[in-house]
């Protein structure tokens, strides 16, 4: 079904004809693809012999996010990051694949990609690189959601809690 949308962008009125079905298929595809990417990244860290260590990244200097990264370097905070990154990647991947708390999972995915992208010292691959597109993919999922399509968010949105607290939908698909 084609949906006719009237919208105002940069002060001017525009129209957009959007196919609901195509949008649904594409967002489901995007969700599963990005979900598998992060699930695989997380599982891979568990499968690799030896514990995952993020110290090399947290100790980076000369990046625009170094002050934040360095604040977590060493001690208990680094140990926490070493645990949180693999488990976070697995949870983000599962959230996207299952369509559960989709916007929240995508937000955390975007946050991780933010630090990966801006944690670049010399930008040898340029400003337009794979990390930027990973970040943009997560933000696209934050914007469009789509956790309802073959996803658990469809059920969560029908619960009394969400009906009584409609703002929770910002965390769902």
């Amino acid at each position: 079904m084609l949906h006719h949308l009237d919208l105002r962008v940069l002060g001017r009125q525009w129209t957009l004809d959007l196919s609901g079905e195509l949008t649904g298929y594409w967002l489901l595809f995007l969700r599963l693809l990005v979900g598998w990417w992060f699930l695989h990244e997380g599982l891979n860290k568990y499968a690799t012999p030896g514990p995952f260590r993020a110290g090399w990244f947290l100790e980076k200097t000369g990046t625009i996010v170094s002050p934040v990264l360095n604040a977590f370097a060493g001690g208990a905070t680094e140990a926490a990051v070493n645990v949180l990154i693999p488990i976070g990647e697995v949870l983000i991947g599962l959230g996207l694949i299952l369509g559960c708390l989709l916007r929240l999972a995508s937000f955390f995915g975007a946050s991780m990609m933010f630090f990966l992208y801006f944690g670049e010292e010399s930008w040898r691959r340029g400003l337009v690189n794979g990390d930027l597109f990973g970040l943009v993919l997560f933000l696209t999922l934050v914007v469009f959601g789509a956790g309802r399509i073959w996803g658990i968010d469809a059920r969560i949105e029908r619960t009394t809690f969400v009906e009584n607290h409609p703002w929770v939908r910002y965390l769902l698909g």
Partner: protein
Amino acid sequence: MPTSFSTYDRFDAAALTIGLGLVLVGVAVIGFLETAFGSLHFTRSIDGVGVVVVHTSFTPHGRAYLVAVGLVVLFGWGSYRICRAIVA
């Protein structure tokens, strides 16, 4: 979603324009200027030295700050939308 979720006023439009605009300026606009008047790439291979970072008119760090500020504006706007929905 309730109407309040899809209502966009001038503040929302300004936040989206500034946030997305800064990202586009940092990546695309300065990237075009760099390509047209500076260097296509940040790095260059020099015999005996290896790959070195080429500093042209616009430093990658300056551009990265612009992009980061744009994303922070979008994050702030998103947080504001959630807070507004909670209060409503």
